[in-house]
């Protein structure tokens, strides 16, 4: 069963920033695009670097290692070397908590 997991207090990700959180065996990145939160797998599909250590520019996050670019809204690759998109997840702020929901098979 998938369930919502608290990863931080609400407001932990400032506008224009991207942070990462450990949820079970995965690391999830949460980006704040103009006040809207987006959650995606933090691990670049190219060489496994942490996307949240890169910069967020609008909806695009750029991997700090080799320049892979993903759209945080969809997880799709928009440029650079990554061969595959990353998974995206549900995320919300509620009752003062930042919560992420991974899927059943995670």
């Amino acid at each position, binding site marked *: 069963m998938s369930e919502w997991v608290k990863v931080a207090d609400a407001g932990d990700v400032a506008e224009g920033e991207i942070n990462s959180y450990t949820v079970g065996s995965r690391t999830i990145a949460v980006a704040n695009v103009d006040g809207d939160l987006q959650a995606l797998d933090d691990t670049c599909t190219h060489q496994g670097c942490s996307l949240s*250590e*890169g*910069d967020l520019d609008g909806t695009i996050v*750029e991997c*700090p*290692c*080799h*320049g892979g670019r993903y759209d945080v809204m969809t997880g799709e690759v928009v*440029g*650079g*070397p990554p*061969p595959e998109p990353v998974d995206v997840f549900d995320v919300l702020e509620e009752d003062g908590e930042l919560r992420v929901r991974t899927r059943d098979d995670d």
Partner: protein
Amino acid sequence: MDVVVVGGGLAGAAAVGALRAEGFDGCLILIGDETLPPYERPPLSKGYLRGEETEPHLVHPEPWYAEQDVDLRLGTRASRLVASERVVELEGGERVAFDAAILATGSRPRRPPIPGLELEGVFDLRVAGDADRIKAAAAGSSRAVLIGMGFIGAEVAASLRHLGLDVSVVEPFSVPLERVLGPILGGAIASLHRDHGVEMIFGDLAERFDGAGRFEALVTRAGRRIEGDLAILGVGVEPVTEIAGPEVEVGNGIVVDETLRTAAPGVFAIGDVALHDHPVFGPVRVEHFDKAIKQGEAVARNVLGADEPFADAMWFWSDQYDSEIQMSGYATAWDDMVVRGSIEERSFAAFLLQDGVLRSTVTMDWKLDARRSMPLIAAEARPERELLADPGLDLRTLHPPKDAT
């Protein structure tokens, strides 16, 4: 429309990927003279050479080409472009007609006429097979001699030290990478390698390789004799321009305008082989991984009619031991350098300026600032020295507004 891409390296593979991603559904042929599908070369001097990665890292998985209806012709050499007939001739005589041709033939290692270069045990490094041969030779060896300490030489030195070999390098300049980084930043690279036990001999050249059928020693111009089990030449590359016929101008590369077009209609060039008229830097021929991909992406849009200048500020990285070096922009000369962090501690960003304009940023174990410099370099910004020197100042706050460029 029929598009032919000549060259099965990263740039060519990025171009075919971007053409399909942009919705191009015409005939698409990729011609490569290697037998492997296009793969990434950076690991060849790093993880692949050290044996940590056992398979070449393919740009697209092999089935992708068939799925995307790309006619992948491996082990095939294009011999001549006949631009006026819009035809590429292949070795063996086949003629491939095109509406647009993208030349992405890359570069090959320079092989200066040094006596003994043909001896067994003397290598250079360009393709996966070269890395395989060096790895195999290194496995039974205790001592390697390297000629040249550019990025390839420096990375190979680090990888061979990691494998436990003694490493000596002969380099004509006074520090590694002096032409690219200058003496001060090159000195930081020298100290890194010194701390890892590399013997560096500066201000000297390879005179000849000695050995009875097989490499035994390098003799230098100054008369040193450096014995070793294998030797690796890393003295730069030259563009592979032979395909360009008389209708396409060739200088130090295939000459293209800001939009990656040659003067011949329908003929473009990208990647290592392209001598590109960059809107900021002027004519440059640059051998970076990231630029190869981005030029592949850009040429796809231009083949489909976008006609956009390629204005990326350009960026690359080099991993040596546990240190990561990054560089953005392009500068052959600078009259000012501002540093945040510490060169001595090898954790810094160095900003290279000419007449107050930021031209290039070099970082060593210093995250983000090489890439954050790119919008400033592309805009030919004149950031204040005090701001550049302040590690607490986020360079993004200096970026020009998006719509201004």
